[in-house]
């Protein structure tokens, strides 16, 4: 069939590409260029070769932030998936109040993590926080101060993040669970499979797409964590809970703009490695299924 109408639908992707080029690709390329310079953000950038990257590997604050960022992700991503899947299994049955429960669990995820972090700050402050006050009223004085030690502050941050986004992860698992045809469960019941066997051989393979999207988004999200840390600890005590993305902002404002773009490229690599590994893993799982 030959159609002799205007064919500019062929180029309908170009406006989107133009916007994307100017506000995403161009800065990305510029950033790669700037990472090779000493630049304070005002004067002319000075070519510096790989100086910034050498500095990065000697910069104890930056390396500490890498550790913080990775530990945050190692805590957050698995816990989020575990909590989300458990909640989805709990809610994958019909009972009265199911929709209300689902809405309640999902509600924290629609709120800005900056505002949610600020709310937890009011509740969790040692001694002055509302929870501490309420405990005091009932005669329990909470000893210790989670904000004074890096590990305990980081643990609190992970828990707050999991509390906020478990409902989001749950919704996606729930959709995956409900797309499993009832016949599959029936068939496995007929074959006399145990609950564990049904879960292993029916539920997990069918949940792969949901698992994939949750794992990938949780890896990217937790490695680029920003708002909740600013709201809750500001990166403290010291720099103990400072994430790499916060460090990038602070270096940019601290007249080390060139260096901050190099740190951003390092963060890019740190995100890309686990994402590619898990994409490969899921591809091989899908081939096997």
């Amino acid at each position, binding site marked *: 069939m030959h159609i002799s109408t205007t064919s500019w639908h062929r180029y309908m992707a170009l406006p989107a590409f133009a916007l994307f080029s100017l506000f995403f690709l161009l800065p990305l390329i510029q950033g790669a260029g*700037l990472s090779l310079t000493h630049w304070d953000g005002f004067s002319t950038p000075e070519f510096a070769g790989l100086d910034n990257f050498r500095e990065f590997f000697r910069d104890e604050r930056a390396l500490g932030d890498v550790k913080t960022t990775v530990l945050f992700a190692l805590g957050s991503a698995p816990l989020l998936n575990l909590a989300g899947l458990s909640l989805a299994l709990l809610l994958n049955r019909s009972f009265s109040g199911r929709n209300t429960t689902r809405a309640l669990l999902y509600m924290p995820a629609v709120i800005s993590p900056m505002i949610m972090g*600020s*709310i937890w700050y009011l509740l969790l402050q040692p001694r002055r926080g*509302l929870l501490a006050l309420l405990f005091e009223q009932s005669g329990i004085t909470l000893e210790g101060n989670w904000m004074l030690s890096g590990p305990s502050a980081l643990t609190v941050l992970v828990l707050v993040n999991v509390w906020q986004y478990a409902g989001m992860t749950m919704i996606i698992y729930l959709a995956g669970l409900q797309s499993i045809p009832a016949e599959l469960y*029936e068939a496995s019941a007929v074959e006399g499979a145990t609950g564990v066997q049904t879960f292993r051989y029916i539920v997990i393979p069918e949940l792969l797409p949901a698992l*994939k999207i949750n794992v990938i988004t949780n890896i990217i999200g937790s490695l680029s964590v920003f708002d909740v840390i600013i709201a809750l600890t500001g990166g403290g005590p010291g720099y103990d809970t400072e994430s790499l*993305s916060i460090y990038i*902002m602070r270096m940019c404002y601290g007249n080390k703009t060139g260096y901050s773009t190099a740190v951003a490229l390092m963060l890019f690599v740190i995100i890309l490695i686990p994402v590619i590994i898990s994409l490969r893993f899921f591809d091989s799982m899908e081939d096997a299924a």
Partner: protein
Amino acid sequence: MNEHQMTSDARMNRVPHGSDTLHWYSRLMVLIVSLTAAVPFYLLILLAFKHPEGGLQSISIIPDFHLANLTEAWVKSDLGRALVNTTIMTAGGILLLVLLASMAGYSIARVRSRLNRTIFALLLICMMIPGIINTVPLYTLLIRLRGINTYWSMICVMAANALPFSVFLYASFIRAIPRSLEESAIMDGCSFFEAFWKITFPLMGPVTASVVILQGLGMWNNYAQAVFFLQDRAHRNIPLAVSLFFQQYGANWPLMAAAALIGLVPAVTMFLLFQRYFVEGITAGAIKG
């Protein structure tokens, strides 16, 4: 009907469907997780409505309903202004995003040219790059373009950041719509663009709802870009206004709680009103992925 199916049917008739009731321990779990989700919000309300008399020590688990905190926080935090700003930037960003992403998705789904495949591949790769990576070079670019403290710069940046995932959603959705619909319109004398606008676009309701909800929420709650690009009081959005209010009034807890409460009300109200669309939107987004 073979023997296997018959036994299966017989079993299903005999065994009552076990999923209509919850065991008592499942009910207990539902109660515990619901409380875990709800209690922080209740505590926030307690704080936000706390009467100044007696100080925070006198807080009880029944709210005071002292409304003056809310009005005072509203006036001092300039949240009204922030609400208008956030609405303008989110609406602008979503409009631009839906227009560009639907056109691009259509072209990519229907025309397999080298240009379109290149654009799509680039977008897919960039889907894995969080915005923070190129924020610093973007900041220097926007200084040169006089884009700091403007609505248009935030609109363009947020739309560009949301483009990869949205184009991906549109493209996979349109691939599932039969071509024959458009072809018959073209036979009747429509141009390709008319066929897109009159036939295909109206069918895109579900995927558009998904894009509007997922990306609109991200734009509404944006902090990581806003903190760079919106620096004056006249342009700040809700997360920025709340965070700056916390820095300013860091001693008055009921006032801080009131500001946080006002800040989360718009998103939560939208969620409660359009709950069904939220769940469907997230689900559609996840399943296509």
